[in-house]
């Protein structure tokens, strides 16, 4: 999907697919709500997995995640909002 035509839902689908590649417990994408944290109290991803997901998003959409990682602990919705077109 070209960046300009991409919707938030389409961005969310890709983000969830990338996250699922790093989750140890098998989950379905529809179990990954926007409020679910990426870290220990949610998906259980470590910092290495988080960076790998963010790098994959950056390479795919050419959007830097620097502002995102400067903020509070990440939830799935934060990642989707950051990379979804404004």
């Amino acid at each position, binding site marked *: 999907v070209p960046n300009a035509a991409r919707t938030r839902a389409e961005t969310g689908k890709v983000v969830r697919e990338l996250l699922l590649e790093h989750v140890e417990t098998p989950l379905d994408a529809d179990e990954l709500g926007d409020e679910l944290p990426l870290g220990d109290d949610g998906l259980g991803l470590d*910092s290495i997995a*988080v960076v790998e997901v*963010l790098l994959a998003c950056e390479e795919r959409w050419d959007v830097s*995640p620097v502002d995102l990682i400067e903020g509070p602990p990440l939830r799935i919705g934060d990642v989707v909002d950051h990379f979804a077109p404004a």
Partner: protein
Amino acid sequence: VSSRAALHALGGLTIRAPRLVHGAAGVLVPPLRRFGRSSFAPEHVRELLPELSPAQARRIARRSWADHVRAHLLHGAAMHDPGGRIQELLVDDGGLSELEGPVVLAFPHLGPMALVRPALWRVRGELVVVQLNDAPSEFPHITTYTTRGEGASTRALYAAVGALRSGRSVAIATDSPPRTLVVPWFARSVAFARGAFVLSRLAKVPIVPMVARWEGHRGRVVLGPRLGPFADEREGAEAYGAWLEGYLREAPTELIRRFVDPAFTAGPRPAAAPAAARAAPSR
């Protein structure tokens, strides 16, 4: 902690009279080895290196404990050294001043580690240091990132990947749990932190092992060969572990508790990686 603080407080003396302080530490400290939490038993040295005699193993255990105390004195010296006089204690930077990046400088906390810092000052290009403490760099060509604190590891790792991809080098320690890779180590196995090997994989750059080594009351930095880049983290950790094991076989007096004591080393030697993984491209 209090004994460590006392050693650091004595560090100022180490800068003013290094030969005297290190000589005194070398004489006074070994008999106190059994009281030291960082000491290890000579028989554990012989489990790693059975060719050594009991007397040689005892000498290594005593020497290692004395060096542990001397390393803390030197660390204290670095803390009391705004003028950079600690550089006088660095015999050789191991070629860091000639280092061509980008590479991951991967190091264990071995030997006179406080001398790694002045050695890194000499790196010509820009350098990123990933570290546990949050001390900022006093040099414009060195940027530090701490891994301590909420989200700090993510920020440090992302910054390190960006630095490597833009041609800068990164220095990072290999002995900080919790995320580790277990690799063969002498007759047993040992765990290394994943960070250095993840960086090599993500940025497709080689790893250069780096250790600090005592030389009398002074020290030198020793660099290993370029290893990788590694598409497989485990392969990178195994190559790094093999180099470090070879270095310590040649210099067993540099052994430290983390690499000797069965409580720190990690069980039986694991099976070798599958041939397919070993055949992964390494350049």
